[in-house]
C-alpha cells in the first residue's frame, strides 16, 4: 500500500524550526531540513511467527500532531517500542530526521536525541516527590559523574515550577508521586515528557481513565504542544481523537490501513469494515 504524507490534513505547523536546544546532553541534533522528523519505513516485527508490525511505513512532519488509531493488536504499542529502542525490528529502518538512525541507538540514547515517550500505563517514580519526578526527567546531562554532583540552578527550578503550573500539580509538588490519583499520574507523566524537552513526543493513550474535564484539559495541552514539538498520540477514545486530530493514521494488523483527516478515514470503506464500522 502506498502512503501519502499528510493527505488532506490541512495546513499544519511547519513554522517551527528547531533551535537545537538539546542542552548539555552531548547528543546529536536531528537534521530536520526536509521537515520530516520521523521516518519509519518497511518495519516488520514478528513474535513467534505473529507479525505485530508488517511492512509499516509512517512519516511524521516537524511540528505535526498525529493521531494513531487502530483496534487492539494493530501494532500501535509495538510501533512505539521500535521507535524508542525497546524492540528491534526484523527488517526496515527508522530515522530521526535525515541523519539519526534510531535502530542503532539504545533507549537512553534515543531519549537523549530528543524522543520522549509517555506510557500507556502511567509509570511515575512512586517513591519520589512530584518535584523530584520532574527533576529526574529534566533535559540535562545524564552522565553518572555529572549527576553525582548536580544541583538545580535557578533556571531549572523555574522550569520545573512552570511545568508544575502547566500540569496543575503545584499543590502536590512535595507529595509522593505514588499518592496521586490516576489522572494526576497521567499528567505528571506528561509533565515529565515536557521536562525532557523532546522534539518528538510519543504519547500512548493519554486520556485513559481520565474524567471528561481532565480529558478536555489534556486535549488543550497536546494541541498547544504541537508546532513547538511533533506529537504522536495513540488513543482509543474517538471523541478525544476527533477533538485534537489534524491527521489520523489507522493501523490494522501491523500495517497502515488509511491516513487522512478524521472525516476521510471515517469514510474509508476498509476502515469502516475493520474498525469504525461498529
Amino acid at each position, binding site marked *: 500500500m502506498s502512503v501519502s504524507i499528510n493527505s488532506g490534513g490541512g495546513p499544519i505547523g511547519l513554522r517551527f524550526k528547531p533551535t537545537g536546544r538539546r542542552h548539555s*546532553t552531548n547528543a546529536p541534533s536531528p537534521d530536520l531540513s526536509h521537515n520530516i522528523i520521523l521516518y519509519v519505513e518497511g518495519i516488520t516485527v514478528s513474535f513467534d511467527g505473529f507479525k505485530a508490525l508488517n511492512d509499516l511505513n509512517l512519516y511524521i512532519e516537524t511540528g505535526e500532531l498525529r493521531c494513531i488509531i487502530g483496534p487492539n493488536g494493530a501494532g500501535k504499542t509495538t510501533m512505539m517500542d521500535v521507535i*524508542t529502542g*525497546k524492540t528491534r525490528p526484523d527488517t526496515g529502518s527508522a530515522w530521526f530526521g535525515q541523519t539519526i538512525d534510531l535502530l542503532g541507538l*539504545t*533507549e*537512553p540514547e534515543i*531519549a*537523549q536525541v530528543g524522543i*520522549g*515517550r509517555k*506510557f500507556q500505563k502511567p*509509570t*511515575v*517514580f*512512586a*517513591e*519520589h516527590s512530584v518535584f*523530584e519526578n520532574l*527533576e*529526574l*526527567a529534566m533535559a540535562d546531562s*545524564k*552522565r*553518572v559523574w555529572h*549527576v*553525582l*554532583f*548536580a*544541583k538545580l*540552578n*535557578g*533556571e531549572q*527550578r523555574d522550569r520545573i515550577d512552570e511545568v508544575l503550573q502547566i500540569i496543575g500539580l503545584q499543590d502536590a509538588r512535595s507529595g509522593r508521586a505514588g499518592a496521586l490519583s490516576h489522572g494526576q499520574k497521567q499528567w505528571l507523566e506528561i509533565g*515529565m515528557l515536557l521536562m*525532557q524537552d523532546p522534539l518528538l513526543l510519543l504519547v500512548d493513550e493519554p486520556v485513559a481513565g481520565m474524567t471528561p474535564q481532565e480529558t478536555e484539559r489534556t486535549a488543550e495541552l497536546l494541541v498547544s504542544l504541537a508546532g513547538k514539538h511533533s506529537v504522536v498520540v495513540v488513543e482509543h477514545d474517538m471523541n478525544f481523537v476527533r477533538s485534537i486530530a489534524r491527521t489520523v493514521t489507522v493501523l490494522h494488523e501491523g500495517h497502515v490501513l488509511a491516513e487522512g483527516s478524521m472525516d476521510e478515514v471515517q469514510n474509508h470503506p476498509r476502515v469502516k469494515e475493520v474498525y469504525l464500522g461498529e
Partner: protein
Amino acid sequence: METTTMKPPSILLAALRQDRGGQILLALLAAALVLVPLTNLVVPEGSALHLSTYSVTLFGKYLCYALLAIAVDLVWGYCGILSLGHTAFFALGGYAVGMYLMRQIGTRGVYGDPILPDFMVFLNWKTLPWFWQGMNHFPVALIMVVLVPGLLALIFGWLAFLSRVTGVYLSIITQALTFALLLAFFRNEMGFGGNNGLTDFKELLGFDLQAPGMRIALFVTTVLALAGAYLACRYIVASRFGRVLQAIRDAEGRTRFIGYKVESYKLWIWVFSAMLAGIAGALYVPQVGIINPSEFAPINSIEVVIWVAVGGRGTLYGAVAGAVLVNYAKTYFTAAAPEVWLYALGALFVLATLFLPRGVVGLMRRAAA
C-alpha cells in the same frame, strides 16, 4: 536570582539535618571513639568500668559487619540489586590484608622461611607466586583491598548488567560467584593457604597485633571507616545520583526512557559497594586473626541480607543497627544455646519480613511518631 551552585558538602549537610538515624549513629560512633579507648586502656583492669580487650575486638568485629551491611543496603535498599554474594568482596579485601600480614611473619613462622609463608614451605614451593609479590608493602596491600573487589565487581557487573540480568536471576549468579570463589580458595594450588587460609599473624606495621594498643587502634580505624562510609553513602543517596538509583529500583525501564544509562549507574554503585565490602573485610581480618575460604560461604552473604532486612533496608543506619543487633544475638545464642541459633536466625528473618517490612528502625520511627 538564586545562586546556582551548592557544593557537595552542603548537599551532605542538608541531608544530615533531616537524617535523625544518621545523627544518632554518628553520635554513638563518636562516643565509642572516646569511651572505648578510655575504658579499655585507662580504666584499670578489675574496675567495674573496665572494658576487656576481648570486648573491644568483638565490637570492632560487629562494626566491620555493619560496614558490610551498609555496602549491601546501598545496592539493595537504594538500587534494588539484591546481592547474595557480597561476602565475596568482603573476603577478598580480607585476603589482601591477610597476605600482607603473612608476609610480616617472616622468620617467626614454624619453618622460619624469611620469604615464604609456612603453607608454601609445606607445599614444597620454592618461590613466591607472582600475586604475592609486593604484598609485603602495606600501601600495596591497601590498594589491593579496594582494587581486587572493585575489579571483580566491575567485570561481574559489566557482564551481568549489560546483559540486563535482574531480580532473582542476578541474586542467583551472585551466589554462584561467591560459591565459585569458595571452591577456588579451598584449593591449595591457588596459593592462598587452602582450607586453613591465612592465620598466625604477628605484626601490623611493626606493632604486635595482640597488644591492647593495637586492638584499640584497629577499633578506632574501624569506627572512622564506618563513619566515613556512612557519610559517603549518605551523600550518594541524597544526591541526584541517589534519586536516579531509586528510580531504577522502582521503575527501571522508565528510567531508561528518560535518558539514563541504567547499566552505568548500576555498575558504578555496584563497584563502589564492593570496595566498601573489601574495606570491611580488610578491617575484619586483623581483628579476628584469620581469613579462610569459609568466609566465601554463600550462607554468609544471605546472613548479611538478613541483617539489612531486620535493621530496615533503604535507610543505611538501619543496616548498621541490624548488623550489630543480629550479631550480638548470634554471639549470645551461639554461646547459650548453639543448636537454636540457626532456627532463631530463620525465624527472625521470617518475622521481620512479615511484621517489620521497614525493619527495627521502621518500628522505632513509628513508635516515635
